[in-house]
């Protein structure tokens, strides 16, 4: 099998020297005379593949203004090689990185080669390849055409990349540029690299403008030239930033930031560290907030017994208001504590790095690190994710993110888990939490595959983005973060949860006159109970789930009202586990459904979201119930 490889790079970076090393004396070398410049081709065999190299004239950009630039550009554009190797002079890499960013827009397989590392070492400088790979998201090889270092590795990487399929990379520009790009892209014929062409049109590339034809440019010349400047600046800023991250003199130690990045984004230990830190955060959240939660619970209970339930008004207040809303409010300390832990992780600059760690994984799901960041918002509230998905450049990615967002375990589900773990397995709360969050992530991942397979087609926009520095989190910032996310919860308690509690109270008071067993809710619950029989849910649970469709916290309110108090409830651990999973997945809350409907502009997706998640929840809960029961009976 033959793999064609184009060697691209600025003039004088060592392309021809590399080419000679790669092709060696083993194979033929042919010269193709051009107008003023030539392109040279040669081949070599490695691991059963014929690597056909093409040494192209040096260029600074892919906007062809001179003829040699045209040779290179036309080659990449009209007879794209299987793999593009962008050769960068490691002694002064910024121009090379600039060109690399352009080449990435072509949607080809790209490998970056930092050449002349021998000279770099002599100057007492080292370059951290893993930093380059992490932040560029493509394979990087360090070579020297003089010593032969890295040549074999480059050949292996070429074969690997070729076999691995294409992984297009898109560099994000400032928002106003992206907006214009989004407008132009659809006007470019599909068979051309749309984003590349759109960029070139903005940059004023005459050839591409003619090729694409009249795309009805909305702006006048000045605005386009301003946009073009912003594009160039964005590329240079990225290059400068990358270099400062990856380069250092060999006598110098790593800075704090570099040291931390090296370990926290480590290939092997990065993810385990992340999981461990999350576990500590969860566990601390409960342990720290538990006593406070107990104090508040006791207070509300005392208050409620003090009021009694002699008549209808008193019962409304003690059962509906205090029982319903109070039971949810009691979990406020835990929720704030968890947000505080997350706030510290985000403020310190740790969380954004995880986006890079998972980018590769996300790509398999045809999502990116950027949708990961959007999805992270969903741990506060799923509606935030659905709204923030607007910021995603690619439509397919946006839809996927919206449709999978309900599986991100939002804070509304927290009180429910807190309640279930407290009554079903009080000893293993952190473990249960860890498991449910892991489940949440797995379901999100699984669903994005399903969504991609079933509904959508299109391409993907991978991640290159800026990462903040590590810093000691400022207390004031963490508190603001905690408050901004937590207050949403308080608002809901005073509006939708209060309303739902009153409705539940009414339905559970009448027509029995206070006897829950004879009330409307009991009828409703019993009516649907058979459907949930296989899961082992009582009619109280079924009722709670129905009302929980409005907002998940209401599950807790319903429990509290139906049982009188949360203290005495007994629940089988297996039912508890299955209920947790069911609550995680079963339906998006009303607000999320509404947001999905308005952001996708169609009921089709909103309904898909409801039915899909219900079916998934039922199957999983049933599985947990059967499998868990089996395990317990064996032990």
């Amino acid at each position: 099998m033959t793999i064609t490889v184009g060697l691209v790079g600025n003039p004088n970076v060592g392309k021809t020297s590399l080419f000679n090393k790669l092709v060696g004396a083993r194979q033929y070398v042919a010269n193709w005379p051009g107008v003023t410049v030539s392109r040279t081709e040669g081949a070599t065999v490695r691991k059963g593949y014929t690597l056909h190299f093409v040494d192209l004239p040096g260029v600074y950009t892919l906007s062809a203004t001179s003829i040699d630039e045209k040779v290179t550009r036309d080659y990449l554009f009209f007879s794209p090689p299987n793999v593009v190797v962008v050769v960068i002079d490691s002694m002064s890499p910024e121009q090379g990185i600039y060109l690399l960013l352009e080449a990435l827009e072509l949607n080809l397989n790209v490998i970056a080669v930092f050449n002349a590392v021998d000279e770099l070492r002599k100057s007492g400088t080292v370059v951290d390849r893993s930093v380059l790979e992490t932040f560029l998201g493509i394979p990087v090889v360090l070579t020297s055409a003089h010593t032969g270092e890295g040549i074999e590795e480059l050949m292996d990487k070429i074969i690997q990349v070729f076999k691995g399929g294409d992984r297009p990379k898109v560099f994000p520009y400032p928002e106003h540029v992206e907006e214009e790009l989004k407008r132009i892209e659809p006007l470019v014929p599909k068979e051309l690299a749309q984003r590349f062409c759109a960029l070139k049109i903005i940059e004023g590339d005459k050839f591409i403008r003619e090729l694409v034809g009249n795309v009805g440019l909305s702006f006048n010349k000045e605005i386009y030239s301003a946009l073009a400047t912003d594009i160039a600046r964005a590329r240079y800023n990225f290059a400068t930033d990358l270099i400062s991250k990856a380069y250092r003199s060999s006598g110098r130690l790593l800075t704090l930031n570099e040291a931390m990045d090296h370990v926290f984004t480590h290939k092997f230990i990065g993810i385990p560290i992340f999981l461990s830190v999350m576990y500590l955060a969860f566990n601390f959240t409960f342990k720290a907030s538990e006593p406070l939660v107990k104090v508040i619970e006791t207070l509300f209970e005392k208050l409620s017994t003090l009021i009694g339930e002699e008549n209808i008004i008193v019962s409304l207040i003690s059962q509906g208001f205090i029982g319903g809303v109070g039971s949810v409010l009691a979990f406020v300390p835990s929720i704030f504590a968890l947000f505080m832990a997350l706030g510290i992780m985000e403020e310190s600059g740790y969380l954004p790095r995880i986006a890079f760690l998972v980018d590769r994984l996300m790509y398999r799901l045809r999502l990116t690190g950027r949708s990961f960041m959007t999805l992270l918002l969903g741990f506060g509230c799923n509606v935030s994710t659905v709204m923030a998905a607007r910021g995603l450049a690619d439509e397919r990615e946006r839809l996927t993110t919206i449709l999978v967002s309900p599986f991100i375990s939002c804070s509304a589900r927290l009180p429910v888990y807190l309640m279930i773990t407290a009554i079903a397995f009080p000893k293993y709360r952190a473990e249960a939490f860890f498991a449910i969050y892991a489940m949440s992530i797995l379901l999100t991942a699984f669903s994005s595959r399903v969504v991609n397979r079933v509904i959508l087609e299109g391409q993907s926009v991978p991640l290159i983005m800026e990462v903040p520095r590590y810093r000691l989190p400022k207390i004031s910032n963490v508190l603001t973060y905690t408050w901004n996310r937590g207050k949403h919860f308080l608002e809901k308690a005073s509006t939708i949860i209060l309303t739902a509690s009153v409705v539940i109270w009414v339905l559970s008071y009448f027509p029995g006159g206070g006897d829950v067993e004879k009330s409307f809710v009991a009828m409703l619950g019993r009516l649907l109970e058979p459907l949930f029989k296989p899961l082992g849910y009582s009619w109280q649970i079924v009722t709670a789930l129905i009302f929980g469709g409005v907002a998940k916290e209401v599950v807790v309110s319903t429990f509290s009202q139906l049982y009188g108090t949360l203290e005495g409830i007994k629940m089988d651990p297996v039912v508890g586990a299955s209920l947790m999973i069911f609550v995680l997945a079963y339906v998006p809350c009303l607000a999320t459904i509404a947001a999905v409907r308005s952001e996708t502009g169609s009921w089709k997706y909103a309904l898909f979201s409801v039915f899909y998640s219900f079916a998934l929840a039922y199957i999983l809960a049933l599985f947990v119930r059967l499998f868990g029961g089996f395990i317990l009976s064996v032990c």
Partner: protein
Amino acid sequence: MYVEGIRNWKVTTVRSVAVKQSLMMFLGFITSIAYINDGEFTFGLVLVVFSSVFLLGIFERKTMSFSYKIAHLYVGSILMMIATGYLILTFAFSHFNLLVGEPSLRLSIPDFLLILTGIMSLFNVISLKKAVTREKTP
């Protein structure tokens, strides 16, 4: 070029880093085993992960390995401090339990081991931070 000239760094020698690294790794793994032995399986596992940060430092063999070794020592120590901080805070907060009439936590032997590791880590971080931040980022 974005790189400053070569600077020598004399505060910590190669050998003292290697010694510290092995010591931290040893303490870390012992503490993890103590916790697992005590039935605190998950927390023990967390400490295993944190200790392997020290372990992986040993395998840094490329150029600049010395710097990377220090990075592992530094970050490993930070993680150990986080674990110790977690323990101490949980212990402190457990005294609120007295309010609702439940006992506060008692420190166990693994807890003391972890606190010892934490103190060592604190020293590491302070000494390394001084050395590391002497250099400004480019």
